[in-house]
């Protein structure tokens, strides 16, 4: 049996800091009931990878609460399937670095001791996609690659030759995942003590001549969430049937922490068009082109347009919201009007009362 480990990295969250005061980037709520990390984690589980490390970072409270021991993802405590890896103290993530190996230093033993693991899959925690790693792993092992890079089909040509001519292209691509031989990572972690590079992609680039590196271009839907407008757009993408179909209706489910909510209740005045609505809501107003998360209440006469409401939004009566993002547990008082724009949605931070 091929033994594979998955590791999910934190990412630079500066452009999302309005959401990350008290949580890491990986637990930003998304799509009515998910957190960003649910996608990367479900990808691993759906590809039968049962040894997973998640970088916890400094603001780890919501991550631990969300993941527990991984039971909702069929990960098991007894066989130690899931580990939350503590952050390096007094360290902050850099913007340009996709996978910063320094984050793994406190867990060096965790990786080095797993000598039966042959390969590690690195994923960032801020991407929305539904990847099947099984064929990619087959490709990786059958071609005897040292490194397989899974890149988005976004903005550049296919990867070809030597590092230098490809540097620009790499920069322009979004990296969905990197599959690497485990021993390469162990070596890199050891060399870091002697000032070796900590940027995984950079390391691969520099050693490309000694390694079998292959790039796979992914044709499906994906979004990287690195700023507010990307967050906004990715949420609204869920109103597109093909996106919903690809993310949620295929054979590979996206798992998340379960909550006990009542089905959503609509009253006789509710008018809802083109909306993605989670359970536990009570809806009595007008909703258009919006994402409504669990346990939200929309008062009568209120209009929610082109907006994203995270969990426990409490909207009074006769409110008007357009191009607005509400973080968790925001209360909007009666008759409030908030109008952002498509390019610059208004964001209200967690727990606010407006």
């Amino acid at each position, binding site marked *: 049996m091929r033994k594979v480990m998955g590791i999910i990295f934190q990412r630079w969250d500066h452009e999302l800091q309005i959401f990350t005061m008290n949580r890491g980037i990986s637990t930003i709520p998304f799509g009515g009931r998910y957190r960003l990390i649910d996608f990367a984690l479900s990808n691993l589980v759906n590809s039968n990878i049962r040894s997973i490390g998640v970088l916890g970072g400094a603001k780890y409270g919501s991550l631990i609460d969300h993941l527990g021991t991984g039971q909702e993802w069929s990960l098991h405590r007894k066989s130690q399937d899931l580990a939350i890896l503590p952050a390096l103290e007094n360290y902050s993530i850099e913007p340009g670095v996709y996978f910063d190996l320094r984050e793994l230093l406190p867990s060096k033993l965790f990786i080095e001791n797993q000598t039966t693991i042959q390969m590690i899959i690195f994923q960032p925690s801020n991407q929305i996609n539904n990847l099947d790693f099984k064929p990619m792993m087959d490709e990786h092992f059958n071609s005897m690659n040292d490194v397989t890079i899974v890149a988005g089909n976004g903005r550049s040509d296919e990867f070809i030759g030597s590092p230098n001519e490809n540097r620009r292209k790499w920069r322009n691509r979004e990296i969905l995942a990197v599959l690497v031989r485990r021993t390469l990572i162990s070596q890199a972690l050891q060399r870091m003590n002697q000032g070796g590079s900590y940027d995984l992609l950079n390391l691969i680039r520099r050693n490309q001549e000694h390694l079998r590196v292959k790039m796979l271009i992914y044709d499906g839907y994906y979004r990287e969430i690195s700023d507010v407008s990307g967050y906004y757009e990715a949420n609204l993408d869920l109103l597109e049937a093909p996106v919903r179909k690809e993310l949620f209706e295929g054979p590979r489910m996206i798992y998340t922490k379960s909550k006990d909510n009542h*089905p959503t*209740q609509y009253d006789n005045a509710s008018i809802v068009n*083109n909306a993605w609505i989670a359970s536990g809501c009570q809806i009595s107003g007008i909703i258009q082109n919006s994402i409504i998360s669990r346990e939200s209440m929309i008062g009568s006469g209120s209009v929610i347009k082109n907006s994203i409401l995270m969990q426990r939004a409490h909207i009074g009566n006769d409110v008007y919201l357009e191009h607005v993002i509400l973080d968790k547990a925001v209360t909007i008082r009666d008759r409030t009007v908030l109008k952002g724009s498509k390019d610059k949605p208004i964001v209200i931070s967690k727990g606010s009362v407006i």
Partner: protein
Amino acid sequence: MKKKCVGMLLAGGQGSRLGILTKKVAKPAVLFGGKYRLIDFSLSNCYHSNIDTVGVLTQYQPLELNSYISTGSAWSLDNVSGGVTILPPYQSRYGASWYRGTADAIYQNLSYLQSYDPEHVLIISGDHIYKMDYSEMLNTHIKNHADLTIGGLIVEPEEASRFGIMSTDQENRILEFEEKPENPKGNLASMGIYIFRWPVLKRLLKEDGVKEESQHDFGKNVIPAVLAQQLNVFAYPFMGYWRDVGTIQSFYDAQMELLLQNPPLNLFDKEFRIYSNHESLPPHYISTEASVTDSLISDGCSIFGEVKHSILSGSVVVEEGAIIEDSILLKNVKIGKNARVNHAILDEGVVIAADEQVGSAEQAILLLGKEESDA
């Protein structure tokens, strides 16, 4: 490990008056209110009452129920000592016997109870809709030094003959008990909720177990025997919402009550949540052309048509032009384009083809099941 009070939940009932809904599952596993199963109410009550050890007695089609209950972790009832234990009929050295009645089911599991040697035993069933803190009843039971306390409900006089009716004195001491009396002497009905002192229960069940003529039923045999023995028996009046959903009509009515402006059963109350063990489904989608009013919509639904005054369980699809009215659609029901569903209950997985019409406001509730598939 010694426990103060252990719960015994009777979940073996077939519920044959619910027709096809209980063809493949036991009554306590029937879906209610879009996402619950009937047994969620009793199990959630146990959690809220700090009853952390519950035996669930099953017999009829227990598969769905067993895997639904699992360890009880959905109701926070999995504990290092205690938790939920499924108690099916079993074979022992002395032979094998199906449960012959509610009392016999517990009689055959005395050794389960003995392993916890509780002070009191709470007996409940898994097919009623209510929220109740049994710990208050237990406190009253203890304060009264009662051998048995029976949960009681005031019912309409014309309903009384469907229940076991209790006559009590001012201190709620039960003077008389009649099972389904033709001419009821009162309207305090037994809810089928009993708290026994454990030594008393043990003795009574052993006595009943060997009686040839007994039907081994609590209401018919054990309770009358208790009263005949001059034991300390009290009623505990319960004032809250309680529904028996044993018939198609009552099953339908209790759910339609959830659509009222202020439903008598508040399922949004965070302090007394009804827990359930549900699969992970994405939010529901309501399209630009759709219209949804006065309804409960569960996760995973996709709605392109019109839904009025209805309850939709998980992953129901309503295609364009279809109209659903005054209906209850269980899991995975698919309604084709321009179809109409009115005043109907559609069981799990039912598919209504495009343009079809099902049910009518003028007729009795239509209960529709899925064609039998090859097993």
